[in-house]
């Protein structure tokens, strides 16, 4: 990352990586939750879709803030994923699109706060849920 490639620097980099792996192993972090490998093949596709969604809902949120018709609502949805990691990905995706925030998570029920009924309908239509389930794949 520094743009300098001498032997000493590369050696120190390898030692650093080894040290990190040792520490993470010792903290028992490397398991299905810490390193969700089964996501990776389909991840890029999902990320592009998510990015497009974020831009669109950014403009919608800006419109709502300027025009000022705020009617907040709060409701619960069911997450149909099987593993904890996929549920967390779903909750994070909901939070990442402006206009909707996950306020509580308990097993497979999420409590979502939306800025407007349009955003609420977006989440309730379960489109993102299906995408994340696709990302999780067959298990």
């Amino acid at each position, binding site marked *: 990352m520094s743009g300098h490639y001498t032997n000493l620097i590369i050696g120190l980099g390898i030692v650093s990586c080894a040290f990190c792996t040792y520490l993470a192993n010792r903290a028992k972090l490397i398991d299905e939750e810490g390193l969700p490998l089964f996501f990776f093949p389909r991840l890029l596709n999902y990320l592009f879709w998510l990015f497009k969604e974020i831009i669109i809902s950014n403009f919608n949120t800006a419109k709502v803030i300027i025009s000022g018709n705020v009617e907040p609502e709060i409701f619960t949805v069911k997450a149909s994923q099987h593993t904890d990691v996929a549920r967390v990905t779903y909750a994070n995706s909901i939070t990442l699109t402006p206009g909707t925030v996950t306020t509580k998570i308990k097993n497979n029920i999420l409590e979502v706060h939306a*800025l407007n009924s349009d955003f609420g309908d977006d989440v309730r239509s379960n489109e993102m849920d299906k995408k994340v389930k696709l990302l999780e794949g067959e298990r």
Partner: protein
Amino acid sequence: MDLFTDLLTGLFFFLGSLSIIIGACGLIKLPDVFSRIHAAGMIDTGGTAFFVLGMIMQSGWSLITVKLLLIGIFIFFTSPVTSHVTANLAREKGMVPEGKKIGKLL
């Protein structure tokens, strides 16, 4: 080509500036904590995405691009975590948001 890149950078910077200023206005204007989280999320996602895209346009392909992408990924990863933790704690302290409730709450 140079002019084109500059123009694109300017467009991205304009959108980013608009995004963070509207987000900051919303942070003042909106009524309660749960609504303000949306405005803060707008600063985090919209502002960072547009500014990082603009700077990548300006830098070309080099190590700087990698570092900029690292900043973008890091903020995109931590922003939902902090807003969720804030909202979760506010709910657990017993604050109930304004507006209508649909269905049974947790």
